[in-house]
């Protein structure tokens, strides 16, 4: 594989006595789809939050393209090409679907100290809006208020917002959670299509989705890495089995 795009060195985050992330080191390569799995409370979301900048680590460093971004604030990381979706859907409920996506586009087209021209009819923003709506299949709901969408549509919108930022690295936190089987398949297709275009870090419980999408998989338990490897390696790993199922009792 090529050079690491994201490099994590000795990353640590404790919440009181809970070691959500403990001396964790990991490299994520350019173009790969890297899945994080592990039992509940293993620190998957924490790791994602540390990478995206939602949380500040207690110790350790994060490098993007060999540049130390550990202290770079959340909003600035977005401009470096990091984008994410949240486990608990995070959209702008009172704005329309179209406005939600426009904001994502606007975030990357200069400053927003523009007080007079109407944003929704700004050609510079609109140009990117159509493909952004189309990509997540929400053209027919463009004018609806985001709060009125179904759960699955909200998830799609959120992924759409992350994509509208044209990210280099996309963090997806359980994109399939709570989706019906049909929705999961749709979203799986969407992610499979994105694999070619960007680096993806994926936290997901849907094991089938992970094995079909991920190039490499990292298994986390209690904030530490148990093993990193390809799907086949993970499947046959004794350590993983132990982490998930507990030690086998001799019969």
């Amino acid at each position, binding site marked *: 594989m090529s050079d690491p795009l994201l490099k994590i060195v000795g990353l640590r985050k404790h919440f009181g006595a809970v070691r959500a992330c403990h001396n964790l080191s990991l490299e994520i390569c350019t173009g790969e789809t890297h899945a994080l799995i592990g039992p509940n409370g293993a620190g998957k979301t924490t790791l994602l939050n540390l990478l995206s900048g939602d949380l500040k680590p207690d110790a350790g460093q994060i490098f993007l393209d060999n540049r130390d971004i550990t202290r770079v604030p959340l909003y600035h990381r977005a401009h470096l090409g990091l*984008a994410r979706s949240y486990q608990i859907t995070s959209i*702008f409920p009172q*704005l329309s679907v179209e406005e939600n996506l426009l904001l994502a586009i606007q975030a990357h087209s200069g400053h927003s100290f523009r007080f007079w021209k109407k944003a929704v009819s700004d050609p510079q923003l609109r140009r990117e809006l159509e493909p952004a709506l189309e990509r997540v299949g929400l053209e027919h709901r463009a004018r609806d208020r985001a709060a009125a969408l179904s759960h699955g549509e909200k998830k799609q919108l959120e992924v759409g917002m992350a994509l509208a930022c044209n990210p280099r690295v996309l963090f997806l936190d359980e994109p399939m959670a709570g989706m019906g089987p049909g929705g999961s398949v749709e979203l799986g297709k969407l992610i499979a299509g994105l694999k070619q275009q960007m680096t993806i870090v994926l936290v997901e419980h849907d094991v089938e989705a992970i094995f079909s999408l991920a190039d490499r998989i990292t298994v986390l338990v209690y904030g530490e890495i148990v093993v990193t490897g390809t799907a086949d390696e993970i499947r046959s790993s004794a350590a993983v089995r132990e982490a998930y199922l507990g030690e086998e009792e001799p019969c």
Partner: protein
Amino acid sequence: MLLLISATLLLLLLPTLLGWLGEEYLISLASRILIYALVAVSLDLMLGFGGMVSLGHAAFFGIGAYVVAIFTHHSFDGSPVLSWPFVLPGLDGALVLWPLAILVSALLAAIIGALSLRTSGMHFIMITLAFAQMLFFFFVSLEAYGGDDGLSLFARNRFPGLDLSDDTHFYYLCLAVLGIFLLIAYRLVSSRFGMVIRGSRDNEKRMQALGFPTFRYKLACFVIAGAAAGLAGALIANHTEYVSPGLMHWTHSGVILVMVLLGGSGTLFGPVLGAATFLILEEVLAIYTEHWMLYLGPALILVALFARHGIYGILTGRERNNV
């Protein structure tokens, strides 16, 4: 739209109508409503669109009023406002003095905003309240300008082409100012800047994850609202020809907040309706009883319970934010 046109017509013709009815003294009440509408709309920019609930907005209103009162006072005395490090003479020309009032309020808003916007929610409410109370007590103890008793103006400011001591002239000026500010606010809320402000209200974390440094946009919104409140203060000082620290008291911020909620927060015309309803109710109820608050209170509770988008919501049947 029809509602808007008829309301505008009514406001334009109001002095004539009142003249026919022989109730000219009500012009003064109408001007007062317009001034409070201005400050209420400015608060709603922050509160309804930006999600910043402030209980200190009257501070900027009061500062604008005091700037006008102090300079006008010195202009009549012939004494300088400042004699050191440079001589600053008194002023009574509106075209210089009112922009100065706006500038001072905006500066103050920048300082207070920069400090209080580091918090949010309940803490933000308490910090803005605390700053406003500090200013209140500052002016209470400022004996040179009347302290607790406030400061009277000898006359209204000079405005080229208008005679502000004429209530009708003053009314039309207030109407023009409110109209211009509503137009600015209307453009503002759907501009890129407005999108960022509304996005931050809905979900600030998400805004940052998208790449918006939300703090500076919220601060800009806070300053714009403070500046507009300062202008309203300059108008109210001219209107009553009297200013007192009470203008800055937190209960006065509460009154402005009530106007916004009563009329409908997150709408532009709601606060205008709220200011009108509040002041007219105050006027009418005060005829019958000095305990008029006793009746206003339940009316407010009813609005809060059954009309969450305020009077504007009832009138138009529209949802929030569809400006």
